[in-house]
């Protein structure tokens, strides 16, 4: 347990920590490192989401917690117990598999009873009946998995894991196979069940919206490391890397040179226009950086029009594209330095629609902007976000 040595600032020693803790966990498959020196604390009772594009190592992390993979190095403790090398059937952890992995030769009742029977639990039938009631599958108890719809199978998989009351419930993209409408209602359902039973849920997904709506803590993973971790709103409003800025929603990233660092404000020269960012939202020590601003935080107006955004005003834009979505209008504005900036304006009815080719001025409040490390790729994470 030499890894604990660095943990003087850790909230509790491994033996006392009640949640799930990963320390310096690395998993390599030959020359490929799937998970790279990962540290993670998941408090007891949390709904925790591991979010990232496919191949980022989130499923491998989950499988190591389940015991289906063994870490190359590092340690995993759960409720004070070292479970790094414990067999999967000896850990108080259950998984809802992406493919559901329901036993085709057993009916729904037997599938749900499987874990309890292995542990010689008493009164299995009644517990199963209660669990099937919770997931509203009582009438399907004697059917075989193949006779159920995708959404029903998903609930069986959930019930089969949940009934064991594990310390940690792992969900491996459990909603990935469902259509959008069903997925939304299952998200609400899952969240409700998690609050009801009070277990720790670790939810792996590549769907940022799913992670944000369900989890109370989200860890964004990329290339085997956690880029940023926090409450969904914090991650969205104050991303610390270009990957997070692009993967969670959309961001405009504009190159700039840092001209001044005051105690509370960083001033940046953005293609000849001075803009400022609060120090707490600056995530670079370099001379150059990316100014980030979410499209819905950018205000659009006629040249010279006074907009409610003191501080940063960027003149000289030309509208190149207008898409009227209904609830909002999406503008694409070409700036004097050639870059196109996205603007979302809510359809409040109080402002007129701008037309392609019009001269416009952009503006935003400094406290909405963020400043990122210039060494990072400005398009990192962007494509994946478009796919999902």
């Amino acid at each position: 347990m030499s890894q604990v040595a660095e943990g003087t600032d850790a909230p509790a020693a491994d033996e006392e920590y009640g949640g799930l803790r990963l320390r310096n966990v690395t998993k390599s498959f030959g020359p490929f490192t799937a998970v790279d020196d990962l540290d993670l604390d998941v408090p007891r009772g949390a709904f925790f989401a591991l979010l990232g594009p496919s191949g980022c190592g989130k499923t491998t992390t989950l499988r190591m917690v389940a015991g289906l993979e063994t870490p190359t190095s590092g340690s995993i403790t759960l409720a004070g117990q070292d479970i790094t090398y414990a067999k999967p059937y000896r850990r108080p952890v259950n998984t809802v598999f992406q493919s559901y992995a329901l036993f085709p030769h057993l009916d729904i009742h037997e599938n749900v009873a499987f874990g309890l029977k292995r542990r010689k639990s008493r009164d299995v039938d009644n517990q199963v009946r209660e669990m099937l009631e919770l997931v509203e599958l009582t009438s399907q108890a004697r059917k075989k998995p193949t006779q159920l719809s995708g959404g029903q199978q998903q609930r069986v998989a959930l019930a089969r894991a949940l009934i064991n009351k594990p310390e940690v419930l792992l969900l491996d993209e459990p909603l990935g196979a469902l259509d959008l409408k069903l997925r939304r209602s299952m998200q609400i359902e899952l969240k409700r069940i998690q609050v009801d039973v009070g277990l720790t849920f670790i939810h792996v997904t590549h769907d940022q919206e799913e992670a944000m709506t369900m989890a109370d803590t989200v860890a964004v993973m990329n290339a085997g490391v956690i880029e940023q971790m926090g409450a969904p709103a914090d991650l969205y409003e104050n991303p610390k890397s270009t990957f997070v800025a692009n993967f969670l929603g959309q961001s405009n990233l504009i190159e700039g040179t840092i001209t001044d660092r005051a105690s509370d404000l960083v001033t940046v020269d953005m293609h000849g226009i001075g803009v400022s960012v609060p120090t707490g939202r600056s995530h670079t020590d370099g001379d150059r950086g990316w100014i980030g601003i979410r499209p819905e935080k950018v205000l659009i107006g006629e040249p010279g029009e006074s907009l409610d955004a003191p501080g940063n005003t960027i003149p000289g834009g030309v509208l190149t594209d207008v898409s009227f979505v209904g609830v909002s209008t999406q503008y694409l504005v070409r700036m004097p330095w050639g870059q196109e900036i996205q603007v979302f304006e809510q359809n409040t009815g109080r402002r007129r629609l701008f037309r392609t080719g019009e001269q416009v001025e952009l503006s935003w409040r400094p406290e909405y902007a963020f400043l990122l490390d210039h060494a990072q790729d400005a398009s990192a994470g962007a494509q994946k976000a478009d796919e999902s």
Partner: protein
Amino acid sequence: MTRRKGLVGYLLLLPAAIWLGVFFVIPFYSLVATSLFDPSGSDVVGYEMTYHFANYADALREYWVPLVRALWYGALATFFCLILGYVLAYAIAFKAGRWKNLMLVLVIAPFFTSFLVRTLSWKLILADDGFVVNFLQFLHILGADGRLLATPVAVVAGLTYNFLPFMVLPLFASIDKIDPRLIEASSDLYANPVVGFFKVTWPLSLPGVVSGTLLTFIPAAGDFINVQLLGSPNQRMVGSVIQSLFTDANDYPAAAALSMILMILILVLVLFYVRRAGTEELL
């Protein structure tokens, strides 16, 4: 359109129907008829059809020992094939990786040599001064004058060897189809590897177990080559009795009646077996 489709269907069935008619229905009719001929006839003076059902009783009374022995040896060989074949099929399906296809070819490879030649080579392996017997004598498992040839061990070993591929192939087909994620799921749900095998892998492989045991048991119970080459008259199985009745004794009615008895017995056993396995709800 539908009528034309129907016609095409019947045309496609025709070759198989003709084949079955010429090579199954007619010979089968002939067998049934022969089994009811008057036993006092011979192939020289000809037989008379007297519906002599006593042929069956006579055959049973006289040959019940080789009949029971055949079923017993067949069952033993099937059992050993199942154990050996299951381990092999499991290894090929789950553990062989890129050697999978090569191992399957090796399972089938013995078929490239004649059944007879392969059984004869077992005679060499199990010979009285062969290394197997010598080694077993050295270990005092066999006495100084102990032997393997002309014993039930040799016959069952020969049967097991010869019919093993018929067990391995259907077993492999079934086991290979099992999603390894189901085994992961069982271990996630507190089943240790042994329990996981009996609760998940084994039930999912039952279709292969049923077809494999049938494909092994039916020919093994009717076999006469292994007894003839590796056994002695003490191990006579019903197959060799039928064979000698037909070719040596020329007692066609008794031979036919015994064939019918063997067939009916196996049919009843198979139906019973499939019915029982069927209640386990195969996938």
